[in-house]
């Protein structure tokens, strides 16, 4: 296994992504967790870039880092309170819970890894030609075969936006 520059780059991106993800699980302060979460999304975007899907990578950054992460930070700030902001990590079985969670996650990873590694058909080299995602082709693909889903996604997004705003704007009852 000889590492090329591109291979090194992949490992770097993967480590960045996974590391940031681990940080999210461990950092106690929600704002920081959100920020490392954003970093994790940046890493995913880099992986997309590395795989040749530049357009998707940029979309990933725009949507996740630009919009979702900012939204999350806002919400965290909006819900911050002395008595409620912190997590209730205590309890009699807190350790058990953490162990359980970790155990499940690791077990799942083990199972997935076993499945991935056990399947010979997945042992594929990357094609020689660097693949470039043509945005024009993507556009054609979208308007040629996927118009109804596209419209639906548009509708879903709009409805979600309107719904989100409506939910967030619900007036507080005067007596509440």
């Amino acid at each position, binding site marked *: 296994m000889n590492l090329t520059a591109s291979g090194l780059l992949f490992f770097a991106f993967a480590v960045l992504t996974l590391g940031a993800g681990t940080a999210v699980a461990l950092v106690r302060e929600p704002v920081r*967790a959100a920020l490392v979460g954003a970093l994790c999304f940046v890493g995913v975007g880099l992986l997309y870039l590395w795989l040749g899907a530049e357009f*998707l990578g940029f979309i990933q950054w725009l949507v996740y880092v630009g919009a979702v992460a900012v939204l*999350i930070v806002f919400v965290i700030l909006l819900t911050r309170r002395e008595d409620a902001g912190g997590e209730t990590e205590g309890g009699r079985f807190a350790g058990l819970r953490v162990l359980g969670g970790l155990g499940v996650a690791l077990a799942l990873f083990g199972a997935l890894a076993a499945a991935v590694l056990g399947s010979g058909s997945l042992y594929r080299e990357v094609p020689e030609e660097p693949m470039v995602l043509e945005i024009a082709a993507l556009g054609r693909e979208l308007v040629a075969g996927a118009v109804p889903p596209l419209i639906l996604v548009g509708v879903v997004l709009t409805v979600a936006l309107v719904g989100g705003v409506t939910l967030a704007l619900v007036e507080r009852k005067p007596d509440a």
Partner: protein
Amino acid sequence: MITLQLVLLVSSALFCLGLAIVLLRRNAIIMLIGIEVMLAAANLNFIAFWRYGAEPGSLTGVVFALFSIAVAAAEAAVGLALILLVYRHFRTIDPGRLPVAHD
């Protein structure tokens, strides 16, 4: 060289990481981040299979990922709005403390 297996291992790891976030954290917002991480891992799978696929000319994987991102964004928006609402009502965003979570 980087094989498909390797990419898939990374995405599996990312998925399990997302799961771990959801399972370990007790803050609904962070749990939401975990969910997004899991979705990103799934998207990574799509892209990987597209990249290493037999028919790179077909853009199905990319298109799917695109839609997935869009839906995930919508989900995040609604989810966050709900969290905000829940917070206003119960003054907490710990799912374990919500009265509805008990019987």
